[in-house]
């Protein structure tokens, strides 16, 4: 027997590709642009969002019948703010350098549209197990794009992956740099992330024509 029923599995798999929060719904773009210059930061951001969205969806789902609908946004904000502060404090305690790099963007997970979107659209109307899967799925879809973008930006922009030089030493001119190759400074600046995300959207839509909207 499969671990998850087909319907439950789709909750996780759908946001990874055909209903991806970044490339299809175009949510959460700001953080995707801001922190993807390094792969490490992308990965930590992805894990943080997986935690916040997974746990947050469960909490909201459990409370869904007692939250007065007039003040539900405030309740959602309190839940997500609590979780984000936990993440922020953990990062500050155990990965101080990294939390410096991520700076305000950990705090800004609160305003990440993906999170409020899933609370509103899914957790308020579904049970905790389904909400949990949906949260993990959407956060994974977000994280996958972040890691792809971070991979290309760090590789082309700094010649490193997770801070480890993979193309040789740019100052001593070893490896690829001996041939005259240079790092692409354009990849370091945030507009490059917009273009990389654009190219991912382009590739995805030309592979799956069903995603193209009617003009």
């Amino acid at each position, binding site marked *: 027997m499969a671990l998850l029923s087909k319907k439950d599995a789709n909750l996780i798999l759908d946001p990874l590709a055909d209903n991806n929060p970044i490339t299809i719904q175009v949510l959460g773009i700001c953080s995707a642009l801001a922190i993807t210059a390094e792969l490490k930061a992308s990965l930590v951001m992805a894990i943080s969002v997986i935690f916040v969205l997974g746990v947050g969806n469960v909490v909201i789902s459990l409370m869904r019948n007692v939250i007065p609908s007039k003040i539900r946004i405030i309740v959602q904000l309190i839940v997500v703010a609590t979780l984000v502060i936990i993440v922020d404090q953990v990062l500050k305690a155990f990965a101080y350098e990294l939390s410096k790099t991520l700076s305000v963007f950990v705090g800004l997970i609160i305003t990440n549209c993906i999170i409020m979107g899933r609370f509103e659209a899914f957790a308020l109307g579904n049970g905790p197990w389904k909400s949990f899967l949906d949260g993990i799925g959407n956060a994974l879809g977000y994280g996958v794009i972040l890691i792809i973008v971070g991979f290309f930006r760090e590789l082309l922009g700094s010649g490193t992956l997770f801070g480890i030089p993979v193309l040789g030493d740019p100052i001593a001119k070893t490896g690829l740099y001996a041939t005259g190759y*240079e790092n692409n*400074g354009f990849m370091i600046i945030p507009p490059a992330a917009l273009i990389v995300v654009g190219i991912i959207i382009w590739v995805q839509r030309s592979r799956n024509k069903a995603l193209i909207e009617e003009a």
Partner: protein
Amino acid sequence: MKEKLHQIKLKYRGKKMAPAFNAIHTFLYSPNETTHSGSHVRSADDLKRTMNTVILALVPCLLFGMFNAGYQHYSAINGFPAEFSLFEHFLTWDNFWLGAITVLPIVVVSYGVGLAIEFIFAVIKGHEVEEGYLVTGMLVPLIVPVDTPLWMLAVAVAFGVVIGKEVFGGTGMNILNPALTIRAFLFFAYPTWMSGDQVWVHGAVERTGTADAISGETVLGYLAQGSTEFAYSLSDMFYGFIPGSVGETSTLLILLGGLFLVFSKIASWRIMLSAVIGSLAMGLIFNGIVAAEWIPVYSKFYGLMSFEYWQHLLVGGLAFGIVFMATDPVTGSQTNRGKWIYGFLIGFMSVMIRVFNPGYPEGVFLAILLMNVFAPTIDHYVVRGNIKRRMKRLKTATIHPKVTDGAEALKTETV
């Protein structure tokens, strides 16, 4: 030969590689298709002729750029001639030869990579190859420093053609000028190769740190550092015997090319004129600020602000940008009134970016790219304004119908 090509074309019609073949075919011969219905009035001014006219206007700049590349290189080594003579020091075979072997590879890479991408996209999409790249491919070598590494150029051309043009649907659909997209990509990706005093003279980068080190700073580079002690006279700036990107230095030849484009009605004189006015206006404002002593002499903007307002047109890429880049009919404004606004703002902002951002000693490409983005908005409001004005005219118009039943027709005529 011609007949044979026509036959081959028929044979391959509908095949995957047909667009690639047709592109070469129509480039060499006029196609043998005829229209079978509708009107048969045809103008000879097709896209290919437009493109060729622009290329023709660019050739003097390219040739001058080759001579100048050699001149700057040898002068940096041997010292500038005390008594400059055009034929003895500038138009020499040595200069031309050095220029040719450094500039021609750039031209070849620019065309090779750009056209390869155009052909690939035409085959994938199954439409004909468009001539749009012919001019871009010629502009690119003229707006890069002479020692730009060829692989960087290839990467930038690939980026510019794909992201600047093909994703929007190819020639005629692009928002940004592809040549400037390529320039901007190079500038932000490899800034050390696009600015400083090492890149404008051939061989300067290789000689850095050796006893034979040479350098050549552009006039704008000097000014941005607050120094006015450069050895170039006004006539040097006008004729173009100064360091700079390959084809942008000679204001004289750019002016001639511009006049040629205006008289052959390829480029818009409105854009050129208003851009010149715009740059003069901004230059005058800065000169005025200096004259009123609103900024101190030690301010980092002082050098560029006190630069005589009309001399902005002689240095850097401003003249080249105004004549060959701003007038791009695809990315510029389409309405006449819009062209005035569009051109004026290009000139105005170019000088502004130059002065206020010494990190970018040249602001022309940024100003033009910015206005490319705003061109459709300008057009939109010009058209809306026109509609409003005519509606108002209709309201206040008194209509004197000669015969009563003709009143309706007359009313529409008045509008």
